[in-house]
């Protein structure tokens, strides 16, 4: 932040003032026409770009997350569309994982964590008083950054979800669900002869695909992925990206990633987070080729982050 040149600084300041003036005139305006060359100033914190979605599955309005007194995420407005992959990018500690964990209320497990604002799924608030997290989490599955298979057999890992939710009644149905899930996760051929062996004995990439199989075995409608490839090699990453692309036809996917190439490859929309703010959101192609906000450009061009 301290390295940019004075000329650029003054230029963006001028643009920022101009923008703020326009914002005053039309406060309801959600998008903004900007000259392709001139960027929004770095200090500007109101989300740039179209954060609504015509076919929204999840709507977040003014979402804030507090850890005790500290506010980790501020004032996020974002829609997540059906059958779409949305990538959340941004530097470490910018709140993208925290935001992601709000979507299936995983933050409930952290003591002192408080979520404000409103998140609705299909029009129903997920932080409502009468909402049970068990069906919510069955509907909104999650894949974590570190592969975390249960210390049980491969079969039991995948079968656990369908079992506890009572999705299957017979053993042969369960076998089918397990095989299907493993096939869709691209793991079946590698593990079909050793389903009884511990899931923790697989390689990192296989473990992560096992976790994905475990998630899709419950047949969720939304899948949240928190840097699913951060611990994997390029080959395993490629397999998982291909998998995400295939899953898109059935599920809504939100993926947090540190790899901009990955975001560009797998997602249709991209949201850029910075220090707890949602800075910019838009079509992936647009965000990567023509970012509106100076911070977004700095990040995707590798100036920081």
């Amino acid at each position: 932040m301290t390295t940019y040149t004075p000329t650029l600084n003054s230029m963006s300041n001028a643009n920022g003032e101009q923008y703020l003036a326009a914002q005053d005139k039309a406060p309801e305006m959600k998008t903004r026409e900007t000259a392709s060359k001139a960027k929004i100033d770095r200090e500007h914190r109101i989300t740039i770009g179209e954060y609504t979605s015509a076919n929204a599955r999840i709507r977040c309005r003014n979402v804030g997350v507090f850890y005790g007194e500290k506010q980790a995420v501020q004032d996020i407005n974002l829609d997540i569309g059906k059958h779409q992959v949305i990538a959340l990018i941004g530097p470490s500690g910018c709140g993208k994982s925290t935001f992601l964990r709000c979507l299936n209320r995983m933050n409930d497990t952290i003591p002192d964590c408080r979520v404000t604002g409103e998140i609705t799924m299909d029009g129903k608030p997920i932080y409502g008083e009468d909402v049970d997290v068990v069906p919510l989490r069955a509907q909104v599955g999650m894949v974590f950054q570190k592969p975390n298979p249960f210390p049980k057999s491969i079969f039991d890992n995948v079968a656990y979800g369908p079992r506890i939710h009572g999705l299957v009644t017979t053993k042969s149905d369960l076998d089918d669900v397990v095989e299907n899930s493993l096939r869709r996760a691209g793991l079946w051929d590698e593990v079909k002869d050793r389903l009884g062996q511990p899931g923790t004995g697989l390689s990192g990439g296989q473990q992560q695909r096992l976790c994905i199989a475990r998630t899709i075995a419950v047949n969720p409608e939304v899948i949240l992925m928190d840097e699913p490839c951060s611990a994997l090699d390029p080959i395993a990453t490629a397999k998982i990206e291909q998998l995400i692309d295939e899953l898109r036809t059935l599920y809504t996917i939100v993926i947090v990633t540190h790899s901009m190439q990955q975001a560009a490859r797998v997602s249709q929309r991209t949201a850029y987070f910075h220090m707890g703010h949602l800075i910019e959101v838009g079509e992936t192609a647009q965000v990567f080729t023509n970012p509106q906000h100076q911070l977004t450009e700095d990040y995707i061009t590798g100036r920081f982050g």
Partner: protein
Amino acid sequence: MSNFSTQKPAAPRSHDIVMAGLGKRRNAELRFRAYGLGAIVIALVFLVLLFTSIVSKGYSAFLYTNVALDIHFDAQAIDPEGLGTPDAQANGDYDILWKTAIYGLFPEVTERQKKRALAGFIGSSAGQRLRAMVKSDPKLVGTTQRVWLPVDDAIDMLAKGNLGDAAELSDRNKDSLVWLTTLQEQNRIRKAINREFFTNGDSREPEAAGIWGAVSGSAFTLLVTIGLSLPVGIAAAIYLEEFSPRNKWTDFIEVNINNLAAVPSIVYGLLGLAVFINTFGLPRSSPLVGGLVLTLMTLPVIIIAGRSALKSVPPSVREAALGIGASPVQMVFDHVLPLAMPGMLTGAIIGTARALGESAPLLMIGMVAFIVDVPTSLTSPATVLPVQIYLWADSPERAFVERTSAAIMVLLVFLIVMNGCAVYLRKRYERRW
């Protein structure tokens, strides 16, 4: 080039600095290893000393000196009226039988006092043994049999050489030694397994005193302790760690559990006396009350160990379970508990082993009483192994010294068996990855 180096002295290489300090580091490491090794060696030496002392003193209690006498089952003595019924035979004078036999072996002993000493050569239970023989086989009456009878405990000590040199013996013991040697020459002396020691309850007579009463007392007491403290302790640990809200009440409970673990055990004994015996009127000296007291003592240990085992389960497992929609109970029982079980079991075993070796609180609730009968239920009067050791260590008879050591050996075997079971269980749980 030399010019350059003299003008600007090169900064010392990091490598040289590292090398200079290396000797010091190595020495520190070697010293630390030596301390550790020394500590282990000292501990092992003391352990070996302890075991040697106990085993060398105690092993002889498992054997007992027997003497062979040719007993004539005289019908006149057993059944003077010639009725031939079991009742009549049971009332006969059996002591006269073995007395006749031993007097017959030493006809030279005529003096009244010496004859009494000679009769004292045989253990006091001899008459009862002969009676039992006749009862199980009435045909013995009228025949002469060679019967192995246990000697008196003082003679046993003499035979085992526990009374010191021959020169230091009292006159009476000198006579006994002469008789013993004569009998040994006639192959009438042998050492046999001391069955009474394993099957009898306590007794004032060392030759009749056994460990079985204390072993079953300990077993009943532990049954109560394990049966109560394990489920209650583990359930409490799970609730406090996984489900209870974090507020000042649970903080208060947590602090108190930690404090209870440090309360001296005799205080629990007083508590048991006041609450279980005086208020609830449960029977004194019973394994039930002993088990309840030991449960109170063990619970904090099990709860604390259980909580730390639960705490050490990685959060990723919890997240994985919650992430696919498991309820908290499903998460705990399907995933967290299997991983925490080995640690919880370890805590439970440490607690139970401590309970097994505990004597102080049991003194307060009357388990220190002299109890001859082997306990048959949770409410019959009983004593436990550590208290039995304490009682025997206090007895004046020389023969109780070796019995004390033998009882310690039994207690240690008990502990080793328990720990062995625990290690086996833990391994079984751990093998489920």
